[in-house]
């Protein structure tokens, strides 16, 4: 019951955090920035609106938002939030989760291609390419975790006799994981330096260009899905940051939420201080994250750990 409650809170709070990013960016730029709840306003506005559908599109165009939303919401189900156990958990659920996200992407791409717009096609190609590479990093992380902990589920990673934490015996390796997971977070959620959600030039967009033709509630669903996805990755990293055994009870939950917030702040700072990468450097960026984790994983097989 607690878990379901936490789950509901997470979904409801998901639009809150991107507000933090905007605030941080504004702060760094010396501006006041939009209100913290800006994303809620946007969502509300979008839900109220109607839509224009392109004559080129088919039913898949309308399915895209629904699937991406459902996928993100589903992923969160398996994710332990703060000290709670996740709503659902079984051995192997990590694979299911990342594949479900793949499903979301699949339909987002189809919806984009459905519009017959060359720009959306371009965005889809990039999205597919980069997330394919990111997937390799994610699975390398799963490999490493399995070797550290013998588990194949989110709840298993962070609980039990041998949880994965910074303070654990393999904490040093986790630093590598945290860095590369953060890079993956940036990639998968279309943040700078991979993508810039604020850009206005379609040629340079990745994710944004794919949803150009969506409007109204459809766009709202997509946004909501994106927020859930972002919070999913943040929670994942937060679990690595916050030592599970050191703190207990509500204190842990508070620290955890702060950590999640900190990750958003970090995103905001990254966006402020970094420029976008050239498109052909993005694969290198992702491969760097892959190399980091692989290094860690190979260390485990060499008998160092």
């Amino acid at each position, binding site marked *: 019951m607690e878990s379901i409650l936490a789950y509901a809170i997470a979904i409801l709070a998901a639009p809150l955090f991107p507000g933090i990013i905007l605030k941080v960016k504004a702060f760094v730029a010396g501006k006041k920035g939009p209100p913290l709840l800006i994303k809620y306003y946007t969502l509300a506005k979008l839900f109220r609106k109607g839509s224009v*559908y392109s004559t080129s599109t088919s039913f898949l165009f309308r399915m895209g938002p629904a*699937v991406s939303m459902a996928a993100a919401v589903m992923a969160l189900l398996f994710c332990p939030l703060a000290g709670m156990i996740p709503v659902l958990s079984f051995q192997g659920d990590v694979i299911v989760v990342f594949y479900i996200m793949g*499903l979301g992407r699949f339909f987002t791409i189809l919806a984009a291609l459905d519009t017959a717009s060359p720009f959306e*096609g371009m965005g*889809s190609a990039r999205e597919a390419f980069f997330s394919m590479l990111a997937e*390799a990093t994610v699975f390398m992380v799963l*490999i490493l975790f399995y070797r550290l902990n013998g588990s194949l589920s989110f709840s298993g990673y962070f609980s039990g006799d041998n949880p994965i934490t910074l303070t654990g015996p393999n904490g040093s390796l986790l630093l590598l994981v945290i860095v590369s997971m953060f890079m993956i977070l940036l990639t998968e959620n279309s943040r700078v330096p991979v993508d810039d959600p604020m850009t206005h030039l*379609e040629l340079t967009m990745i994710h944004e260009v794919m949803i150009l033709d969506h409007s109204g509630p459809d766009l709202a669903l997509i946004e909501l899905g994106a927020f859930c996805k972002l919070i999913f990755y943040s929670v994942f990293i937060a679990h690595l940051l916050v030592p599970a055994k050191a703190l207990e009870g509500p204190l842990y939950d508070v620290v955890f939420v702060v950590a999640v917030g900190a990750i958003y702040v970090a995103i905001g700072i990254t966006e402020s201080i970094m420029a976008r990468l050239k498109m052909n450097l993005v694969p290198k960026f992702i491969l760097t994250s892959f190399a980091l984790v692989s290094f860690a994983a190979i260390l485990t097989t060499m008998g160092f750990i």
Partner: protein
Amino acid sequence: METFLLALGVLLAGGVFPLLTHRLFNFMKAVYIGATVCGCGIGLYAAGISLRSSEIVSISWPWLHIFMLSFSLDSLSAFFLIPIFSICPLAALYSFHYMNKGQQSGRTAINLFFFTVLIISMALVTTAGNIISFALAWEVMSVSSFFLVMYEYQREATRQAGYLYFIFAQAGAMFIFAAFAVAYSHTGSFSFAQFAGIPAQVKVLIFFLALIGFGSKAGIFPVHIWLPHAHPAAPSHISAVMSGVMIKMGIYGIIRIYSLLEVKDLIFGQSVLVFGMISGLLGIVYALGKRDIKKLLAYSSVENIGIILIGAGTGMIGVYSNNAIMAGFGFAGSLLHVLNHSIFKSLMFMGAGAILQKTKTRHIDQMGGLIKRMPLTGKSCVIGAVSISGLPPFNGFIGEFMIYFAAFEGLGVKGPTAILMMLAIISLALIGGLAVTCFTKVIGVAFLGEPRSDKAASASECGFAMTAPMVVMAAACVIIGIIPEPFINLVFLSLRDIHGFSAVPPDVIAGLARNLGLAARLILALLALSLILQRICYLGKEVAKGPTWGCGFTRPTARMQYTGTSYAMSVADFFRPFVKVNTVYSGIKKIFPRGTTYTTRVDDIAEITMNQGMVGPLLKVLGKLRWIQHGNIQLYFGYIILTIVVMLFFI
């Protein structure tokens, strides 16, 4: 066994029928389909019986005084019978509307006849109980499928493809014969039963010979070259069966020979795994780079064979390391993927066939917008594409998940296995990502957007005999995906007779199956919820229609859409050393340039290597040797004298 033979009998009768009645075109096809469906139904029943009972039934006849033709039906055979007997009747049904040229009735009849021969020979391959019966069935299978490929023999490409296929079939068969011959030289018997007693080093030789032979049928990477040529050349329902079912006979051979040899070495699993990874990755990369939809699907078969082999290799390593879960899930995932692939690949090929029939092109960049014109085909293909990309909640995911599960289990094994398993998992992940890219390309470019050519614009839905099989298969993809429990049990049941396989605890299997089912149903439920939410949001609102926003272009045309080639190129480029990307660009000249061309083509390095590295030099050397037959009689006398002199040295 009698039931099984009855099934073959019914099939054969159905197959001969068209030869006699080809003048009554539709009647012939209808009766043929009836008989085939009937025969396959009986066959499925026989397979079912065999799977349920634990005894192995067999039957044999003496042949030519020296051989026994023996066939036996164990659980592994029975499992491989399932795709044969379930896909083939659907393909036969499909052919009713696909082969609709009444003026070619004779040729159609022959095609149907060889189709039956193919079904029967495949069924016999899976049940063959000794060397000779296997070789016999294998060769019949090769030759019948060759004739099926040659259906449209007027085209040069078909002839080329048929030729290539013929060569590969024969070369592969030779390797298989060699493997069997080595085995025979140690057992002194044609029977499979004594294979286990062969010395260990010899087993390695046998296994590798067989791996090459079976691999060339299955389409393992360096020997897959015939596949992307033969599949596009064949009629689509034939490609469906060849790609969905026939190449699995290669997999069957590998697993069977592995099981028979009762091997103890690690090298078997390792090599199968490595070949699997290479085939999987390069297969899907090449698939991505192709513009011909059937060629693309053929390369995707190479990829899926790779996945199947990754599973089988993991299973073999699991057997070696006495890890029941790794072994069980590796093999089970591999087998389940065999079944799944046979369904969705046939579905995709049939979809491609439907498009081909209506648009008369296989070039993906000339299609577009077909889902609105061919809704049933389109929807089935979307389901097929999701499944083939291995995404939940459909069937492709279940098999891949089990392989992942086994591979993760293998990470705990000491030694080089862990590294291999890491590579296997990463390959699977990359394959998954690439498959998503590849099949979004297929669906997105072929079915969505605006039609890129007039023919695509004027396409219409094809006949019920073609859509019905596709719908059935799409339904099967969904059902296996959301109710995986019986199917997972089925594959574990069929593993029973694989040697060295110790039973996986049933609660592990049951738990996993239940969880997978749960996850699949959950995502469907969530999807339904969000669709309802979406619907609610639009209640009472005005939904306008308009053109796609052109991002500032005022007059976008259909030709401006992103092409499949561009869509794939950055990924293909990424794999550059293994993928040869050829670009032809005429450049922009003068101040007012006109008419430039830009084409890129992705070439298969295995094919290039074979052509330039092996066949070319070989032909050159052999061409030089043609000098022998010089036409000069004095020279010919010289040969005789030379022979005498040389021979006298040996006395």
